[in-house]
């Protein structure tokens, strides 16, 4: 609440001078950017640029050495995410996927999605153990909601199959479904198109837009597939070696000299 004035009304996430170092390596160095409500925001950069590290700092898997991460939560309060432990971040309405899909192989797809609703279960352990009516109703309601989300993503028919052994494209969708269970304000996608074929990537772009419109949330994504990034993002931030390069619309980024240099190298590099 004390941070209310710091970020403008339409900003959902604002990163200020974020830095983290591992030993002598500055993985993220003085990075700042901000994301508006209902915006699809891309974070790009060559391999090792520190994109995933930046993600991990935002979601509190790493505690940054320096900087502020302001987030406007579900109740429209602004907090500094650094003050929250990693498992509380989702309660504020910030949820993420992982670069290498992190699902539980032994559980059914539906149960995997229900893990995303972990924080929505209010009934006590006692009432769960005895299956008191309240716990049963809660489980049923959330189960219905999970089926609804799976239907939205077009994989409802697979809900009872175990996650292990499903094709990669399906697993990516399950992970996406899991993030939607908490009715997020901001979804962070770590390389959503990695391992997908061309058709699936085109579908993904459509899915990302539909999610934004239907769930009224912002999306931050790290991606190597430039076609997807240029196609789906409203704003893009480019970084290289942990440092900020440029921010702008896809068109602006494509034309930016620094970005071109970072990706393709300068002529000096070749000699």
């Amino acid at each position, binding site marked *: 609440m004390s941070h209310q004035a710091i970020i403008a009304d339409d900003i959902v996430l604002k990163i200020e001078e974020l830095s983290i170092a591992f030993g002598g390596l500055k993985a993220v160095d003085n990075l700042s950017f901000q994301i508006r409500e209902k915006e699809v925001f891309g974070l790009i950069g060559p391999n090792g640029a520190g994109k995933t590290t930046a993600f991990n700092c935002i979601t509190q898997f790493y505690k940054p050495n320096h900087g502020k991460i302001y987030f406007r939560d579900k109740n429209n309060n602004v907090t500094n995410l650094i003050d929250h432990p990693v498992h509380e971040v*989702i309660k504020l309405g910030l949820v993420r996927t992982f670069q290498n899909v992190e699902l539980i192989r032994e559980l059914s797809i539906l*149960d995997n999605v229900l*893990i995303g609703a972990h924080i929505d279960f209010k009934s006590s352990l006692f009432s769960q153990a005895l299956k008191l009516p309240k716990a049963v109703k809660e489980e049923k309601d959330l189960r219905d909601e999970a089926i609804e989300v799976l239907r939205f993503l077009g994989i409802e028919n697979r809900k009872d199959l175990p996650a292990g052994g499903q094709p990669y494209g399906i697993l990516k969708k399950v992970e996406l479904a899991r993030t939607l269970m908490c009715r997020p304000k901001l979804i962070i996608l770590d390389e959503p198109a990695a391992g997908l074929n061309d058709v699936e990537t085109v579908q993904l772009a459509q899915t990302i837009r539909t999610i934004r419109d239907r769930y009224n949330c912002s999306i931050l994504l790290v991606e190597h597939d430039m076609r997807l990034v240029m196609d789906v993002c409203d704003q893009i931030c480019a970084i290289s070696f942990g440092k900020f390069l440029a921010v702008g619309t896809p068109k602006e980024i494509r034309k930016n000299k620094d970005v071109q240099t970072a990706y393709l190298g300068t002529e000096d590099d070749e000699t």
Partner: protein
Amino acid sequence: MNKKLLKNPYIQFVLFGVVLSLLPLLVLFGILPSSYITLIGGVIIYSISALGLNLLLGYSGLISLGTAGFMGTAAYISAYFTVNLHMPFEIALLAGLIVPLIIGVLVGLVSLRIEGLYLAIATLCVSEILRKTFEELSFLTNGFSGKTASYPKLLGFINLTRDTSYVLLVVFLVLVMILIYNLVNGQLGRALNAMRGSEAAAQAMGVFLLKYRLIAFALATGLASLSGVLYVHFIRFTYPTTWTMGMSLNILAAIIIGGVRNIYGTILGCFIVFAVPDLFLKQIPYFGTMNGFAYIFNGVLIILVIMFYPHGLIYIGNDIKRLFNKKKGKV
């Protein structure tokens, strides 16, 4: 309709209990020797403990070697309450649950920040400390000579015999099975599974690791304590030498052999580890009477099970069914 009813897991648990409690009748009619009641009663007691450990080992992926220590603590406390303090069985049961639970939670708070083998070593140390306490604290435990207790007296006036105590064990087992089934198929089970599958994903979904580890540890300790209380009132004596690492390892072996994350598998495992040596192995000439033959048997069995049934021997049923269907198909 009937088939649907039989498929209901709760009905299955109750039926399982009913079948188990028929054992004293079989003994009464002289079909089975009466020593079987003690033997199967023991299996039930260890099963309750193993079901708790399965929650910890199978679902959250944490290894504890402290089971025996907590079982022993509960057994001694319950014996002390009923024999020395002349308290009713119900109060002794409650005390036998609460005291080890408090110790368990304290130990958990300190040790659950570490994982894998380190946690195993930490819990093993606690267990050994507890066992040493049983030996030394002789005003409470009678030291090496062991402590005796009697069959439970329910509500202060129902004196149970060996056979009715056995039925009480079955009742407790069925209750524990239902409890575990409800817990692992709900939010708790999913959270524990998520923790085992991917700690990162679990945390990102809002699972507070320490809290859920502590819950799993407390549940395992609680069930170990329950089985300890039942042990002392069924076997009717307890020695410090009962509660060794060997016991903890046997319970662990039962879970691995029978089936991790499987209620019936765990019970099957306990039957194999705790009853098969007495029932069958002792009949084998020469080898059967060899000291420690049961350990060799368990060791070989673990290797075989991990090679052919990595998820537990309970899945042998599926294979047998398939074999049957194949044969039917041919005919």
